[in-house]
């Protein structure tokens, strides 16, 4: 099978926010090797919104975890914003994850005994941002996400869609160059899904680079580009645009016959 991928150069081109070369990860559970990521090459340019699709077990989460330093590759290179990061020690990764990479997961993973506001301001404070500025940023994000009245609530007092917005604010508060999202709408109903997607699109329009993992095509089609992962390999990589070819596209799908 062909592996589409632009990375033939030895170092990342200047436009690349993320540049991955020949990445390999084998999980070993009870001695049984699971080849989760097999020789993946990938370039994500600054400002791109890329969706990664594929069946369950294809290696999507593993790939995303490698990109964010939550898991270590067996071999291959990862370059983030022009710097090689795959060999960094955990202490350096911790700093990167605070400043340069934002994460959103299917479940918001908020700290249960802190308010929504503190859940977002704390990572800003840990990144060395002065308290007043951390608060201002948090307020701005909450206003943008439509949860300004939830600042004092604890996670348990928030609905699923609201928790996911707080998680999004937490991921974005330090203005990371790269936002990584793993099934961020996976536990939301369709209305909240639509709202979270609209918010992601809005941040993308302002230049946020996003890599989003999903098996939901409605979610994937909000991205500019969709990568299909099968069995740890990239099977396809395509820009998403208006339907082409001879069919009527959208009109064809909507035609009501009677």
């Amino acid at each position, binding site marked *: 099978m062909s592996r589409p991928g632009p990375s033939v150069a030895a170092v990342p081109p200047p436009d690349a926010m993320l540049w991955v070369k020949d990445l390999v990860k084998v999980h070993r559970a009870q001695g049984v090797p699971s080849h989760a990521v097999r020789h993946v090459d990938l370039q994500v340019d600054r400002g791109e919104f890329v969706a990664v699709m594929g069946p369950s077990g294809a290696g999507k989460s593993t790939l995303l975890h490698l990109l964010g330093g939550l898991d270590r590759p067996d071999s291959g290179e990862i370059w983030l914003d022009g710097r090689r990061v795959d060999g960094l020690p955990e202490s350096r990764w911790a700093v990167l994850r605070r400043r340069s990479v934002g994460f959103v997961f299917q479940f918001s993973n908020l700290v249960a005994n802190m308010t929504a506001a503190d859940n977002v301001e704390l990572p800003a404070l840990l990144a060395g941002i002065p308290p007043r500025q951390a608060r201002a940023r948090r307020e701005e994000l909450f206003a943008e996400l439509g949860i300004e009245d939830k600042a004092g609530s604890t996670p348990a007092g928030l609905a699923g869609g609201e928790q996911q917005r707080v998680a999004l604010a937490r991921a974005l508060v330090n203005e990371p160059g790269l936002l990584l999202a793993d099934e961020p709408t996976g536990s939301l109903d369709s209305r909240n899904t639509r709202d979270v997607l609209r918010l992601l699109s809005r941040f993308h329009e302002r230049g946020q680079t996003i890599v989003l993992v999903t098996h939901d095509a*409605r979610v*994937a089609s909000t991205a500019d580009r969709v990568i299909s992962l099968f069995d740890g390999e990239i099977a396809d990589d395509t820009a998403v645009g208006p339907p*082409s070819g001879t069919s009527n596209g959208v009109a064809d799908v*909507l*035609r009501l016959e009677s």
Partner: protein
Amino acid sequence: MRLALLALLAKEPAHGYELKQALEQTFGAAYPQPNIGQIYVTLGRLEQNGLIQGQDVSQSSRPNKRVYEITEAGRAALAGWFDEPTEGPRVRDDFFTKLALAPGTGAADRVALINKQRRHYLNIMRGLSRLAAAEDRDNRIAHLLIEGAMLHLQADLDWLERCQEELE
């Protein structure tokens, strides 16, 4: 469209242009609307078959307009339509035939076929998202139509994934 027009006329008598507006209002901009010519042709056929009855109404400064009313036979046909369960969706036969017959032809490769089809569906999905964003938020019928199309596409994409897993 025949039965849609009958259903509209079961509510109240109307002329061709009013029916066109009623269709647009109900289904929203997303639905590919029939043009007025198609509507007149269909109305003519319905009248020939005795399902509706037209009557010319004179207008002072304009040509006559023809107002249609549903007949008893029309109501029976409409009831029969509502009474029948609707056919389920079919798999994309043409694509499936390509997929089944590609090997050995030297003309196409299965993975390439699947990838091409997936790209096409994703592009349509994006088109539908755009339509949904542009549609009036309060038109629930229009949004349900778009959502139905999206769910069908999602099923087609899931099925493509199964094809790829099984046939690779």
